[in-house]
């Protein structure tokens, strides 16, 4: 029998790891005191695939295809980060046309990723109309990417030393048409997320993170920029063709969920501008240079800006045909801490939106924590929690 003095009774709501509504496995334990969240933990690792070890058994070229499969949404940036790193170790540089095509695909990927997020976040807030519209529009980009690369995901655009395919005039026109269609739509979405009363009720002043918090929690990408922390690798340390096609850092100051919407949507305009600029000024020349199968010994760090923030690669070569070590640190991992830190004090009904706010990618970061406390528990599905949030605000 328990003779210890019971602390104030709290209630843990465990969610997941398997649930039909959230597309990827993750287990959350939300401790609540009445309606208010007092602690939040998450245990990931359900889709850990041992890729860092796997690439050590493969040669330099094969490793890229494996790394590209870390994430299905932002696969291209993984391959780009890796290819840029290997090229730095090998002492070669991809030709300017290849670098421009890398950036072109990266920005198209950012557009598709941000539109996907817009739909997911709207869905978690119960705004399914916005979800349907934004995903319909996202199909334009998916079609463009399929026409360009042959694939809707895992575009496999990079090779070590360059890219695999060219962009011809027909494809360029298709991309321009898609962007011309999306730009006014995006203006409309910006208006919706800043004026729609119901959505604002779920986003304004929710999940507020100050500049200092965002900085000290080590957040990256739009999550940091929504709190005014100007971290963008495309600007801080331009790579590939970004020195020739510079982007502007988009920041907001509010740090709440609404700011995260606004920052991501405004980044879309920046992406559209860069896409058009690249199509207009695509440098002529070769698509790839040769990279020898054995990479000279050395170490390098390669950083790129994924749709979710800084993607960090550390590569080490021992001079052999295989990488000696590949370390991947994805942006979602940095941003989890911000959810766990901001959730306490919020209502349970806000939690789905808070989690969706960082645009989490489970396959990317699959890692983390669980603190178990003795208490009564009832398992909710993600669908139930989402429904609870919508009902609560009805």
């Amino acid at each position, binding site marked *: 029998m328990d003779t210890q003095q019971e602390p104030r009774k709290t209630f843990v709501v465990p969610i997941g790891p398997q649930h039909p509504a959230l597309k990827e496995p993750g287990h959350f334990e939300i401790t609540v005191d009445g309606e208010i969240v007092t602690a939040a933990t998450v245990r990931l690792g359900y889709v850990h695939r041992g890729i860092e070890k796997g690439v050590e058994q493969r040669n330099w070229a094969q490793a890229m295809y494996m790394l590209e499969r870390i994430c299905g949404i932002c696969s291209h940036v993984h391959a780009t980060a890796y290819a840029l790193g290997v090229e730095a170790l090998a002492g070669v540089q991809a030709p300017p046309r290849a670098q421009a095509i890398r950036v072109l695909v990266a920005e198209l990927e950012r557009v598709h990723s941000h539109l996907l997020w817009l739909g997911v976040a709207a869905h978690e807030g119960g705004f399914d109309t916005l979800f349907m519209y934004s995903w319909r529009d996202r199909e334009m980009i998916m079609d463009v990417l399929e026409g360009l690369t042959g694939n809707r995901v895992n575009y496999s655009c990079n090779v070590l030393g360059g890219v695999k395919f060219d962009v011809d005039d027909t494809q360029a026109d298709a991309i321009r048409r898609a962007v011309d269609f999306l730009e006014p739509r995006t203006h409309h979405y910006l208006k919706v997320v800043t004026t729609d009363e119901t959505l604002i009720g779920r986003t304004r002043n929710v999940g507020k993170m100050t500049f200092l918090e965002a900085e000290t929690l080590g957040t990256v990408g739009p999550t940091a920029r929504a709190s005014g922390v100007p971290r963008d690798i495309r600007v801080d340390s331009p790579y590939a063709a970004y020195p020739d096609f510079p982007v502007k850092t988009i920041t907001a100051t509010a740090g709440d969920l609404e700011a995260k919407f606004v920052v991501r949507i405004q980044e879309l305009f920046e992406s559209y501008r860069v896409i058009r600029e690249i199509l207009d000024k695509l440098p002529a020349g070769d698509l790839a240079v040769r990279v020898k199968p054995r990479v000279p010994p050395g170490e*390098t760090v390669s950083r790129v800006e994924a749709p979710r923030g800084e993607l960090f690669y550390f590569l080490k070569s021992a001079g052999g045909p295989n990488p000696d070590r590949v370390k991947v640190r994805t942006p979602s991992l940095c941003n989890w801490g911000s959810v766990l830190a901001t959730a306490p004090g919020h209502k349970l009904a806000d939690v789905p939106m808070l989690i969706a706010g960082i645009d989490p990618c489970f396959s990317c970061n699959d890692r*983390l924590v669980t603190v178990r406390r003795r208490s009564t528990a009832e398992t909710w599905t993600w669908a139930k929690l989402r429904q609870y949030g919508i009902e609560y605000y009805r």
Partner: protein
Amino acid sequence: MDLEQTVVAAETLLKPFTVGAPSREVSRIDVVIRRADLPAAVKALVDARWGYLAAITGLDHPWPKPKPGAKPAEPPAEPVGPIEDRLEALYQFVNGALVATLRVSVTYHDARVPSICSIIPSATLYERELHEMFGIIVEGTPDTGRLLLPDDWPDHTYPLRKSFKGLNRAV
């Protein structure tokens, strides 16, 4: 602040802890520090608000394999070279375009580093990953539970060490 100033700032902050000369590339500076100095060096960077911790990378440098025919060399009790026969933890800080790496080496039989969670709380994930994958014990880290590996993974089996070739599980 331009790149050169950032480099100078990092070098100045880390100078008291640096063992030997720092190595430099265009956008990278690596300093080797002693294990005991790690928290102080991290604190120096954090107090000066020099960038943020981007990653902790583990490395395994096993004793080189003997050449065929040669008599296998006995690994010395104490590590001799800067990298052979030891584990290394790389604390990578990022400021703008620059990556500053604090390199800490430990031997296999004494694979311990102090935790930096009291200075950077969000490092807990990186430290747990370091322990799980490389078997470097992070002393004083708040949480030592399983992070990435399955619950039934055998103890003292560290998959990112070079000696790990797979689990011999009965099928």
